[in-house]
């Protein structure tokens, strides 16, 4: 989507010589529509974001920071980072491999493969967790074998990492596939013809060409990895200080009516969302510039 969103920066110039009445909206329409759009966004986007910080600071700055002295909160932050640090790089490697395969080669079943890669986006988060319970849970396919060998996957960290990997699976691939398809393979052919080997071609020709698209996918992938709730909730088992990620910790605090602490941890996630949006806008801007150059 990078290319499409980036291009919103270009505004249609007023067509010279056309009758303004029929190709341009009258001022009152412009004002009304702009007001309606902004009000809608105010209610549905700005208010929730503002509410997170207001609720977190309701009892003052002291109570806010006290929420982060809690060892369970710190453990949840560590676990969220750990899950993202494993899931995101795995999906980067996959995304690059899949995009290389789909964009640079012709083979049968390509469109089926592209559809299958998008599959996790169509699956409800809750089901994304459930399927791993069915495979690795006590009653699942490998349940008894895992129990005999004393390996815990469900209600433990590996399950959380797997569920996170599943829900963030398509992000990098779906960003890179259309980009690399549009770029074609001419530059790679040239590199190979001039004597470069495959890895040299990838690192020195392909990667510089796709870096903004890749970064864009990584940013989105990471935001989802750190914020995932439903899928992780099913496989976590909610053991405080052990298998709670930040979103799960928010839920526990909230259900205990510890609202200030819940919103304090939530405010960190909201900050992450804001940073994500800023980075995303920056990457779109750089991408638009690199295309104009």
């Amino acid at each position, binding site marked *: 989507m990078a290319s*499409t*969103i980036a*291009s*919103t920066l270009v*505004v*249609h110039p007023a067509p010279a010589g*056309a009758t303004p*009445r*029929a*190709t341009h909206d009258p001022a009152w329409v412009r004002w009304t529509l*702009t007001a309606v*759009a*902004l009000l*809608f*966004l105010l209610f549905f*986007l700005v208010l*929730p974001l503002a*509410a*997170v910080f207001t*609720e977190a600071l309701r009892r003052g700055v002291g109570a806010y920071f006290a929420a982060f002295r809690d060892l369970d909160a710190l453990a949840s932050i560590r676990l969220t980072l750990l899950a993202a640090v494993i899931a995101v790089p795995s999906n980067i490697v*996959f995304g690059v*491999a*899949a995009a290389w395969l789909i964009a640079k*080669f012709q083979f049968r079943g390509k469109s089926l*493969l592209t*559809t*299958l*890669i*998008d*599959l996790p986006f*169509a699956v*409800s*988060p809750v*089901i994304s967790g*459930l*399927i791993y319970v*069915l495979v690795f849970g006590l*009653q*699942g*396919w490998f349940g008894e074998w895992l129990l005999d060998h004393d390996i815990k996957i469900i209600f433990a960290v590996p399950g959380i990492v797997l569920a996170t990997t*599943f829900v963030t699976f398509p992000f990098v691939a779906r960003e890179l596939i*259309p980009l690399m*398809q549009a770029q074609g*393979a001419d530059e790679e*052919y040239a590199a*190979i013809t001039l004597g470069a080997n*495959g890895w040299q071609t*990838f690192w020195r020709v392909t990667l510089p060409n796709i870096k903004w698209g890749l970064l864009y996918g990584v940013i989105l992938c990471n935001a989802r990895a750190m*914020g995932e*709730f*439903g899928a992780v909730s099913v496989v976590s088992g909610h053991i405080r200080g052990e298998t709670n990620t930040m*979103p799960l910790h*928010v839920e526990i605090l909230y259900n205990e009516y510890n609202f200030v602490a819940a919103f304090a941890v*939530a405010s960190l*996630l*909201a900050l*992450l*969302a804001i940073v994500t*949006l800023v980075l*995303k806008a920056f990457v779109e801007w750089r991408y638009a510039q690199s295309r104009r150059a």
Partner: protein
Amino acid sequence: MSLAATLPRTPRRVLPGFGLSLGFTLAYLGLIVLIPLSAAFLKTAGMSWDEFVTAVASPRVLASYRLSFLASLAAGMVNMFFGLIVAWVLVRYSFPGRRIVDALVDLPFALPTAVAGIALTAIYSKNGWVGRWLEPHGIKVAFTEIGVFVALTFIGLPFVVRTLQPVLLELEPEIEEAAASLGANRWDTITRVILPELFPALLTGFALAFARALGEYGSVVFISGNMPMRTEITPLLIITKLEQYDYRGATAIAVVMLVASFSMLLLINLLQKWSRRYHRI
């Protein structure tokens, strides 16, 4: 994306890495996605037909389908209407802060669903910023069906806007000029020229928002109150069954949802193909 593959007709596989990338892609896809997903279908295949029907068509489950379907439908329609206005305003008009507003549209993608859930609950509960104005008029949002609808509207907001924006940008000013020079007024131009052009994209955006809303969990469970038969969405019911160790019941409902989602995915793919052909003229 209407980006046609522009591979030149050179002999295939001049570039290295076909075997490696094919092997890795298929292995990773199989291990992370396909094998675990097949577990849901295989588990259900082991159930008898009667057992399956009891699991997926009990009154409580049916009530959850109705809520999930209707709330997602309503949220999708509202997003279709306001998403059209937002996309139009962002593409066609310029006002101070437009780029910030444009970036903000993606907030529902970036904000963790649990955070959205508790924030919306805080706003719409009795003492909240919006709730305190609605409650005296007898309108309860938090812990009712309306709350579910509000959460699903939030979650689906970016889809219609982001699907429409590129189409609006590609819309050539010439067709509006042509309509105008042939004597159409602005209203005619919009309803007879622009809207029909936008229709496939509008429908695609709606379908994407609807599909996302059907499976949504995190943002809904806090605001819905989760009352059986009334404000219980289908994904929550799966969690409830799992907590009661009713794995077969949970999986059976999951399979019904998966079939619904995959049908939506197919429909969306067809819509996008239609939309693309529509705009290639």
